[in-house]
């Protein structure tokens, strides 16, 4: 089997790394990589070559690939060049863009959507969302520290004492927890908030303080994802977050609701009350943002507050993000590629059933 890897047009990561390419070869899987695909991740063409991959032009890669793996969903013209019935692996986000499923089905490709891999224990090692979120949470704090006109840790000097930065993390999922850990490391005083009941213990397990709002809805059946909350709860939450935000130097928001726009946690009014120079990093910006004023992929300033809207921060650590991504892919491939390198799509398999969103012209994704 031949896997094709492209240079991502708008992302610094690359879908496979030399280490994994090497392992795939033991499996009789060949890899063809577009020229310069790893450059932004500090992986040169020769690194790829050394690992056994073939380096080629984009069109050649596409024409030869039985399976195409990309990080961001490929553009339309890619499909034109692909073999018919090729397998395409990417994060298609069908719950945000349901139309994509039909398009893929029409193209006759087999589309496997990484973000649809179920969050079961067995699939943890394939969970791209987790590994990328974890890097994003780290990067979010670094970014905030970088934009912050303040010093992060406490500092007692001959020229006076600087108090430690106050950090508020909203949404304590994978990204949020990593943000908490990183902010604590750099020396911040961290508080966090989440609607999931389990989050309190998790936040405290990192030595941070949990901001408690009474009366959250929780759903154990939601597979680890949060559910929407009642109006009354939202009000209380709004109120508490405003109080905390006014004192915060940095806010990192990560609250997402799968298939729904992200909840607004930091309103425009709240931003107005915040300290000048404060920084908000909104990791939920791609689904509308947790901050009313954030704009996806942009850094805006409002009322003296810097608001960074970016749901794709993992690419800020491209090398290790690529590495984790590639390892996830590798573990995923093990589900449906035999030891001889043959494709073996068993759609009854729990993982494939969820993540295969188009096959043989059929759209598989039902919302």
């Amino acid at each position, binding site marked *: 089997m031949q896997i094709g890897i492209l240079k991502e047009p708008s992302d610094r990561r690359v879908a496979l790394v030399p280490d994994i390419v090497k392992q795939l070869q033991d499996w009789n899987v060949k890899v063809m990589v577009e020229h310069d695909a790893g450059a932004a991740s500090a992986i040169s063409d020769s690194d790829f070559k050394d690992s056994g991959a073939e380096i080629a032009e984009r069109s050649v890669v596409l024409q030869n690939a039985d399976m195409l793996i990309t990080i961001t969903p490929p553009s339309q013209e890619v499909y034109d060049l692909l073999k018919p019935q090729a397998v395409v692996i990417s994060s298609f986000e069908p719950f945000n863009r349901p139309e994509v499923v039909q398009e893929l089905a029409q193209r006759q490709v087999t589309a496997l959507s990484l973000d649809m891999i179920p969050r079961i224990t067995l699939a943890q090692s394939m969970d791209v969302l*987790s590994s990328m979120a974890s890097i994003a949470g780290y990067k979010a704090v670094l970014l905030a520290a970088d934009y912050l006109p303040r010093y992060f840790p406490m500092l007692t000097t001959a020229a006076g004492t600087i108090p430690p930065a106050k950090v508020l993390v909203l949404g304590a999922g994978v990204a949020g927890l*990593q943000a908490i850990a990183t902010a604590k490391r750099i020396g911040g005083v961290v508080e966090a908030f989440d609607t999931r009941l389990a989050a309190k213990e998790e936040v405290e*397990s*990192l030595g941070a303080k949990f901001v408690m709002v009474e009366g959250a809805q929780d759903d154990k059946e939601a597979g680890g994802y949060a559910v929407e909350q009642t109006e009354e709860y939202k009000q209380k939450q709004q109120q508490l977050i405003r109080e905390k935000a006014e004192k915060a130097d940095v806010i990192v928001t990560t609250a997402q609701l799968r298939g729904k726009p992200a909840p607004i946690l930091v309103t425009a009014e709240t931003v107005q009350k915040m300290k000048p120079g404060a920084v908000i990093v909104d990791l939920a910006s791609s689904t509308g943002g947790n901050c009313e004023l954030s704009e996806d992929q942009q850094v805006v300033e409002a009322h003296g507050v810097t608001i960074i809207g970016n749901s794709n921060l993992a690419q800020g650590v491209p090398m290790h993000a690529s590495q984790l991504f590639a390892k996830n892919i590798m573990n995923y491939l093990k589900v449906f590629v035999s030891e001889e390198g043959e494709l073996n799509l068993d759609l009854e398999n729990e993982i494939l059933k969820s993540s295969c969103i188009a096959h043989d012209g059929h759209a598989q994704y039902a919302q």
Partner: protein
Amino acid sequence: MEGTTTNLIYLICISLFIIGLKKLSHPDSARTGNLLAAAGMIGAIIVTLLTPLESGANNYGWIAGGMVVGTAIGLTVARKIKMTAMPEMVSLFNGLGGACAMLISIVEFYNHPAGEPLLSGQMITTFFALFVGSISFTGSLVAYGKLDGFLRDSLVLPAPKLINMVLLLVIIALSAYTLMQPQLNFTYVIVILGLSLIYGITFVTPIGGGDMPVVISLLNSFTGIGAALAGLIYGNQVMLVGGILVGASGTILTILMCQAMNRSLINVIIGGFSASGGGTAQSGDEVVKEATYADTAIMLKYAQKVIVVPGYGMAVAQAQHTVHDLEKTLEEEGVGFKYAIHPVAGRMPGHMNVLLAEADVPYPKLLDLDDANKEFASTDVVLVIGANDVVNPAAKTDTASPIYGMPILDVEQAKNVIVLKRSMNPGYAGIQNQLFFGERTRMLFGDAKSSLSKLVEEVNNA
């Protein structure tokens, strides 16, 4: 003059007992202590054999016979039994000592010259010795049976307190009555003997299997008192003093053992309600074994290699600094100490990394899954600290399990596994963990941080 020499040597023997006991209470010198005490005993026996008598036929043959056979049996049994069976063996031995005291007092009654007055210190003492020796005898046998498992805890007496009280009163009354008589009635003695033997049984039977060590210690101090009483009968210093010594230290030891279990002695004896409080926690049909802090500490201290498997529970307990303390303490003892970090331990990627770095654990001490799995087989003790799913063998064996297929840390390969958690509650995946019921696994229930502090303390004491 020979009496003086004998008594001087006895004094030396007693001193050896004292020093022996003293040394027995420190790990480093305990072996020496045992040997010293044994030397004291041998010395006392030899001197007793050699001291000239005013009357009597010596009968060295009988003595030699008893000693040779006794020694042979004692040593063989001691050599053969399994490590795990030692407590019941101690109980059995103790019962035999009690039986000896009992036999001596029977003989004393038997020897009692017909004309002599009965109501004397001597006779009272003999009755005491009979009583104490008998209880020690049958009580120890019951304790042995309970520990060995052929007597069930479920064997419950109706109203045990009442029975015991009545028995005790009857024995005292009958003894007093016997002493009041002008002439010794040996039948009464036999009846008292029988009642005392029964009392030993009814005394121990209601007490739960988990409390047996305490009971054995108590019965041991009874045997000591029995020996002392025998010493009083014969005016023999070494028996008297040695017996009292054991009686006193045995009593203290009993109290200390109760304290270590957070119980009072009264509670153990009178209570008798703790039939289930014994070192085991049920879950369905299976039973887990509980570890004690002390045993775990000694296990850790004398291990060559220890691996910690931290999990979400360590994070919840914020026990990372305490783990690091344990690491430092054990490393000073020359123990190799590593951490096995499972990729999904905790609730976020790198959860354990963050915490251990905070506690200043050096990076090279962290093993990842593959390296750790290579090392477990050669590991003496694995400490599982608030981890659960990541060490659940169901992931390998149970295809129906939600975690089936997840790579896990194969801690069962290690010689001993100690699991620190608060309860039998499951972890994130919500499933039971077969590891906890494993042959080599012991549970240490409680908040991980406080358990660890106690372990550090015990390691420092041990």
